[in-house]
């Protein structure tokens, strides 16, 4: 059961129009090598789901700057002027979602839930077009589950099957995204023979493919 991928094999997974979740928070925990390979592949019309728009030369920002992204689903885009400019020009469709709602919608998809009821965004423009539900007299927004075709995540290390742990705050969205996509590719900084069963964060069953960072660094 060898899950490791080389660049060409990784790029064979890509095609125009894919929806891709990318881990990271202001690019901390973003698998830059995999982003570079997506840039190099030139695939277009991507839907990118990421906490933010990255920076022009970092993270998903590189895909935006390279005009590969059709739709961006994120909680903020303030650090990448290309995202704002492409949104203004109509090139990029930006869907802004509260960060906690985004995390929970992704988790819901991974956990087989249809959606969740959250108080976040009540009586704000986030509420527009959403269904409201009262539970015990409190009103909530129904936020549907959110999945994608492909997850690109960064992990600190894994065992040969893909049991994974993360590094500090580079964990962020990576574990939930690993549960919510058809295909999950993990960029690992280290491969180890075994990981303590008590501390594994992402079980191997979620990881389809592993790219070893050190082979390409």
């Amino acid at each position: 059961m060898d899950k490791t991928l080389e660049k060409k094999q990784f790029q064979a997974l890509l095609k125009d129009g894919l929806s891709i979740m990318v881990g990271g928070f202001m690019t901390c925990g973003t698998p830059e090598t995999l982003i570079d390979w997506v840039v190099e592949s030139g695939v277009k019309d991507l839907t990118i789901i990421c906490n933010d728009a990255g920076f022009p030369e970092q993270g998903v920002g590189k895909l935006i700057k390279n005009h590969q992204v059709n739709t961006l689903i994120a909680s903020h885009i303030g650090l990448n002027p290309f995202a704002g400019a492409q949104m203004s020009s109509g090139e990029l469709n930006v869907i802004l979602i509260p960060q906690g709602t985004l995390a929970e919608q992704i988790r819901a998809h991974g956990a087989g839930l249809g959606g969740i009821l959250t108080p976040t965004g009540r009586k704000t423009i986030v509420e527009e077009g959403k269904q409201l539900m009262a539970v015990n007299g409190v009103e909530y927004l129904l936020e549907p589950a959110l999945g994608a075709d492909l997850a690109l995540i960064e992990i600190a290390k894994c065992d040969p099957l893909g049991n994974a742990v993360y590094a500090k705050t580079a964990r962020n969205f990576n574990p939930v995204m690993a549960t919510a996509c058809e295909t999950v590719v993990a960029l690992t900084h280290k491969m180890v023979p075994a990981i303590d069963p008590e501390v594994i964060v992402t079980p191997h069953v979620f990881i389809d493919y592993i790219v070893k960072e050190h082979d390409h660094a």
Partner: protein
Amino acid sequence: MHEKEIIARRIAKELRDGDLVNLGIGLPTLVANYIDPNITVFLQSENGLIGLGPSPEEGHEDPNLTNAGGQYVTLNPYGMYFDSATSFGIIRGGHVDITVLGALEVDAEGSLASWIIPKKLVPGMGGAMDLVVGAKKVIVATTHTNKGKAKIKNQCQLPLTAYKEVDLIVTELAVIAVKENGLQLLEKHPDTTIEEIIALTEAPLHYDTVKDMEV
């Protein structure tokens, strides 16, 4: 004393021993510098940690250890890391005692606008909407005016971050509580007057005893 320092120092006095606190990006972050050394406050950062410590020494930055503003930070003893869903579970679930964040506008009902100026500035709400809805106590840290214009409004004109969630507003001039019947002026800076504060505030202010701010 710079107005930001006044605000940060005053907000620091709201923190109690054992509190879990989330400080927003910018001015709210300064609050950490003025926490009473005799109490222990746990700082949460929504990108995935509790136990936010001071900035690292130069050369000791860890690219895998940042705060929600993307700055390099350190972790205090007894701190820990978690993923984004867990982080916002902590926030939305009411486990954060105090959140401090900035404002574009805040109003007489305690509604807050802080994340968007349509067609001008659209950075996104990040984690602010969850923080304001979820934290037990919401403190707004803001200068009293913006280029002479009142930021404390009858009603926010900009799109809201949250509706009726703010508990306390701290500016360089005043400490104002949001009550059922409107805003209550609790404290004023020693160098200003109640009349001046009222003149610089769009929303009506109730008051009885107004103490001087300790800063």
